[in-house]
Each structure stands twice: as structure tokens, then as C-alpha cells.
């Protein structure tokens, strides 16, 4: 499975370069590259120092932290690709997405079983959940504001989200059945990553180099004029509906 994942990662990198998609998704390309580097260096280190050595353990988790940071940045890049054209919404969404990521990290910290030997998988799970939550919220945003992301960005985001959800679930099961689940945990993690790689290869099979069209923005004051009026009328409408309901209940 390791060899298959490495080969698929190489294929994806080649695809990114050949189709010139690295120009549009530089951080994503960096993430795939770092992940590939981790994979190859881990293989070398395990062969040299053994699977159970302290040095291997530190190196593996250190590199995992770097890869996770690269993944978080790649997700941020995707969010920017999808929403940055709409300046107002993007500024608003950025705060919500960052806030929700912080809340999910907090939730993960509170809900976890605090054992020192599980500290790293727990931290990883928290970050994975935060990444997944950010992507889900991003899709909720696009649906609410009826902004349709292009197919590639959508597939990349879905790949990230599914992978993060699976990793978080895998880490949770590992925490419960630590002694019996180690090997299976590793295999399932690689399978999930392969599925995401496959989805990303499919999404990036064509060139995505066309420039994003500029959106025509309304004058700065338009929002301030219209939106409070709409909200005021909506509030009145809700009050009216409430009255209808209350009158009927009283009558009955």
C-alpha cells in the first residue's frame, strides 16, 4: 500500500506540473511534495534505525506535524480560491472559518481522554477535525450564498474533508483499542489517503490555468442601505406570523 501511495503521489505531482496546475494551486502542490518527501524519508529511516527506535518516532511525528501544517495551508488556499472573488463574503467567511476551527480544537481538547502516550494522536485528531469542519462550513457558505465553486476546487475540498474525517475516526478507534489496532490503523490511514489521491488526480486531470473572472461589485453604500431594510421587513413578517399563531392558540 505504501508503494501504491508513493506512486500515486508521484503521478499527481507530475500531473500538477504537466498541466501547469501548480500555478493555480501552489500550496496544494507543496503539500503533495512534502507528503511524498515524508513518505520516502520515513521508509529510509525505518530501514536504517528500525520501526521502534526513539529517533524514528520523533522524526515520524515531527514530519507529520509539518505535513498537517501544509495540509491546513492547502485548505486555506482552497477557501481563498472559492470565496476570495467576493470580497465582502470572503472577509466575513474568514473570521467564521477561523473561529470555528478554534472551537473545534477546543472541543477536541475537552472531549479527549488525556493520556500522555496518546497526546500526539489526540492533537492530530483535533487538527483533522478542525480541517474537516472548516471545509464543511465552506460548503455551507457556498450553498447559502449560492456561490458555486468550480469542479476542481470542489473535488479537492471533498478529498481533504473525507480524508480528515477518516483520520479523526481512525485516531479515535486507535485510542480505544490501542494494542490491537496499530497495524490496521496504519493500513486504513493509507487506504483513505489513496482514495483522496485518486480523487485529486481525477480533479486535476485537466489544465486549470484560466484566470478567474473579476466580479462586478456594487457601490460601497449599497449594502448599508438595503440590508437593514430587508432585515427590518423580515422581522416584521416574523412578528406577524407569530401573531397569527398566538391568536389561533388562544382561540382554541
Amino acid at each position, binding site marked *: 500500500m505504501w508503494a501504491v501511495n508513493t506512486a500515486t503521489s508521484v503521478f499527481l505531482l507530475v500531473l500538477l506540473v504537466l498541466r501547469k496546475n501548480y500555478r493555480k494551486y501552489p500550496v496544494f502542490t507543496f503539500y503533495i511534495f512534502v507528503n511524498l518527501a515524508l513518505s520516502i524519508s520515513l521508509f529510509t529511516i525505518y530501514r536504517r534505525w528500525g520501526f521502534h527506535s526513539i529517533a524514528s518516532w520523533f522524526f515520524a511525528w515531527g514530519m507529520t506535524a509539518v505535513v498537517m501544517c501544509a495540509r491546513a495551508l492547502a485548505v486555506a488556499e482552497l477557501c481563498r480560491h472559492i470565496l476570495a472573488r467576493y470580497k465582502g463574503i470572503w472577509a466575513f467567511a474568514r473570521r467564521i472559518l477561523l473561529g470555528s476551527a478554534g472551537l473545534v480544537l477546543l472541543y477536541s481538547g475537552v472531549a479527549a481522554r488525556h493520556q500522555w502516550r496518546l497526546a500526539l494522536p489526540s492533537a492530530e485528531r483535533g487538527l483533522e477535525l478542525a480541517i474537516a469542519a472548516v471545509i464543511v462550513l465552506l460548503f455551507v457558505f457556498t450553498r447559502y450564498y449560492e456561490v458555486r465553486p468550480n469542479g476542481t476546487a470542489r473535488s479537492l475540498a471533498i478529498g481533504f474533508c473525507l480524508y480528515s474525517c477518516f483520520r479523526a475516526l481512525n485516531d479515535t478507534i486507535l485510542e480505544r483499542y490501542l494494542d490491537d489496532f496499530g497495524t490496521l490503523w496504519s493500513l486504513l490511514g493509507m487506504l483513505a489517503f489513496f482514495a483522496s489521491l485518486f480523487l485529486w488526480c481525477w480533479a486535476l486531470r485537466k489544465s486549470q490555468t484560466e484566470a478567474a473572472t473579476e466580479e462586478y461589485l456594487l457601490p460601497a453604500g*449599497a449594502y448599508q442601505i438595503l440590508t437593514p431594510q430587508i432585515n427590518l421587513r423580515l422581522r416584521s413578517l416574523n412578528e*406577524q406570523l407569530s401573531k397569527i399563531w398566538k391568536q389561533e392558540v388562544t382561540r382554541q
Partner: protein
Amino acid sequence: MSLTLILFSGFIVILLFVLGWAAWQPRERSRLHADPCSLEQRGQPHTNYLPQIHQALAPEDYEFLLKRAPGKVQRRVRRERRSVVLAYLAALREDFQSLLRMARVIAVLSPQVIAVQEFERLRLTAQFAWRYELIRWKLLMGVAPMTQLDGLSDLVSGLSVRMEAALKELGERAAVAAELASSIDRRRLDVV
């Protein structure tokens, strides 16, 4: 099963469920063309048909039927009236959603949005949906007074009128701004 496993698995299941809902795009769902022209593409609001609905629901007709027509006919008329009102209520919701859509277009096309206003609209939308469903079920069960719908219609109608006036004002301001910008450009050209 441990509490941690339940807490995390539950959260992940919720995330996946929301992802499925949010990422799913039905074919017929049209894309929001983030274009100011789309603000003007609203058709005739359904609230304009209020007089016809009033006539269809006139109590005089019903009283007349009570005196002259047999029970079977009365029941049929009652059923048909209810279906008319339900259709009208659905149309009102369409008007409401159309206005909400306009509000979203404005938000999407604005260089700056205010979080409080956006959250307020979200809350009001959820409230409207909940109350609308309650009233619809009351109508379906035959316990809601049909005349109470007048207030609802007036509110939606009023909202449409005010929005149209505000958009007209906005269009005029944009035209003035464009004229001003082009006159400045012309002056620059003259200087060069």
C-alpha cells in the same frame, strides 16, 4: 463503547451529513449569476393576486352555499378553497425567498458585509421557515383562519415595493457615480 468514541464519532457523522447536504448540487438548481442585472430579473410578485384570492375566499359565497347547496358541495368547496389558500401561501413563500435571494446577491456583490446583519437575516429566515410550516399545517388540518393571511401578504408586498424603490435609488446613484468617474477620466485625458 466509550464516551470519547461516541463524542468524536457523532461529531464526524454530523460533519459528513452536513457535507453531503451542502456539497450536493441538484441539476435544476441554477447558479447565482453574481451580476447586478440579476437583481432586476424578478417577475410579477404573487402578492399582486391578493384581490383575486380575496374574492375566492369571500364569506358571502360560503354563507350562500350553506343555505342553498347540499353538504357534499359545501365540503368540496371548502376543500378547493383550502387548496387555493395553500397554493397562495406557497407563492408567498416564493416571493419571500426571491427577496432573500436578492439580499444574498447584494451581500455577495458588496465589498464589505456586516456580520450582525448576516446573522440576523439567517435567524429571521429560520424563524420564518418554522412559522410558515406551522401555519401551513394548521391550514392543512383546517384550523387556521384564512383571513389572517392578509397581514402576511401585506408585509411581503410592502417589502417588495420598498426593495424596488431602494434598488431604483441605488441604480440612480450608480449612474451618477459612473458619470462622475467618466467626467474625471475625460479631464485627465484633457490634461495629458
